[in-house]
């Protein structure tokens, strides 16, 4: 059933985003020629610096609009798709609420990832291709050829890093879902209350984080120095310590992701009221 739901959520996603992604790439391509490398050799210093700034601003505009549209998509597909009129269709399908939420979540994560990739590709198109090529070459050489650690360790670290990003993206999306589901519990001003709930969740999370840190360091027995000392005594390699750090981040985001999913799922299962 989840795969069937995904089919609909993904096609809705593609219909909304193919145009935006296409436009971002085309815009980057056009700007590359009109504002990019071709005119960089202009004799006037003012004009040439302006022409360097403008493409950057254009690129910034592309990034911002893509980020905003992605955010709107995440909110709108969940709120309109489940808790407004479309919810009458989705919640009368013979599926469980967790499947509805997961399907929205997976498509939202995909939109974010693809938008991210498109943004990176757009930057590469926008800037002078010679420079981009140079940058990629240097980056590649620095990473793999001149690295002080074996290539397989770099590959593992990159994969762990990407996984950490993925879990964090999913966590951020599910925080919005949990906030919307909490806002739905109010009789009036449900959108406003969802916003308030989002802020409250963020506040609660930062309070919890700072209390945990305070708890660890306030006892006096643990200080930053003793902690570093412990780590150095463990005698971990660069690979081991970076990997350890990444998995800690994955764990923190993962716990939040699961908690947000449970909040949204319980509320939409037990306290759904489509009025």
């Amino acid at each position, binding site marked *: *059933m989840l795969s*069937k739901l995904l*089919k*609909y959520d993904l*096609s*809705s996603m593609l*219909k*909304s985003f193919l145009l935006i992604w296409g436009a971002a790439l085309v815009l980057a391509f056009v700007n590359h020629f009109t504002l990019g490398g071709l005119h960089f050799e202009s004799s006037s210093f003012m004009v040439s610096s302006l022409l360097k700034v403008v493409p950057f601003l254009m690129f910034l505009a592309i990034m911002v609009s893509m980020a905003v549209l992605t955010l709107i998509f995440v909110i709108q597909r969940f709120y309109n*798709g489940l808790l407004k*009129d*479309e*919810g*009458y*269709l989705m*919640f*009368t*399908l*013979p*599926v*469980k609420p967790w499947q509805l939420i997961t399907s929205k979540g997976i498509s939202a994560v995909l939109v974010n990832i693809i938008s991210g990739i498109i943004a990176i590709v757009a930057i590469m198109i926008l800037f002078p291709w010679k420079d981009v090529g140079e940058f990629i070459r240097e980056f590649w050489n620095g990473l793999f050829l001149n690295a002080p650690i074996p290539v397989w360790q770099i590959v593992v670290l990159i994969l762990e890093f990407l996984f950490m990003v993925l879990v964090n993206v999913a966590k951020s999306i599910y925080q919005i879902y949990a906030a919307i589901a909490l806002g739905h519990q109010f*009789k009036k001003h449900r959108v406003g209350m969802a916003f308030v709930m989002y802020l409250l969740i963020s506040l609660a999370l930062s309070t919890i984080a700072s209390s945990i840190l305070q708890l660890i360091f306030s006892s006096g027995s643990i200080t930053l120095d003793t902690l570093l000392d412990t780590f150095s005594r463990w005698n971990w390699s660069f690979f081991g310590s970076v990997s350890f750090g990444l998995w800690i981040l994955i764990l923190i985001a993962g716990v939040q992701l699961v908690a947000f999913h449970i909040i949204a799922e319980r509320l939409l299962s*037990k*306290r*759904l*009221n*489509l*009025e």
Partner: protein
Amino acid sequence: MNENVIQCINLSKDYGSGPVLEQLNLTIGSGRIIGLLGPNGTGKTTLIKILAGLLQPTSGQVLVDGHVPGPESKAVVSYLPDKMYFADWMKAKDLLDLFEDFYADFDRAKAEQMCASLGIVPTQRMKTMSKGTKEKMQLVLVMSRKAKLYLLDEPIAGVDPAARDFIMNTILTNYSQDGTVLISTHLIGDIERVLDEVLFLKDTKVVLHDTVDNIREQQGKSVDALFREMFRMNPIEGGNQDAQ
């Protein structure tokens, strides 16, 4: 198969500003057409939405085909809401695909045939359809299922008499004979001829649940006449006393 398609046990619903349904006890069997009748604001839509699983009861229990509203009950309930539930991006074909994917009892060929007779092209976007056509599309989807329970919320409200006839004929010629049809309406005259039973809702309670034949026999009047009698409201008077 469960004999009782609908069972409500001490069902109450309160949105926070007073009860809409209170201690409702109700049993409805299969293979009947039931009119859920009552003036506006008496909880007809609320009861239907609880049965469809879109609202949670404040207290009490509801069983649909022996199941608490959930995936099992939703698989056998065909629900026509009182509003449009289409996403703008969808085409008629997308909806047919969706129903075919999720409902094992959906008869695609029948739905396509009904679409064709209504002049709905499968590639037509929902956004471009008129309100009336959208309503008909929704009815086509709902009535192309061989469901155990059809929940039809005000299917003939707000349409002209010709469209009313079309809608009622579509319902009567397409519903599964073993299924139960629960139609909520306040336009009793138009549907009285097809009803087997009626449920009168008044002041948060079921005030009458009987067969149409019994009502006619015992009360000696039509359901419509009885309804008007039960829910008669006195016109607001005043303002003209001085003139008399």
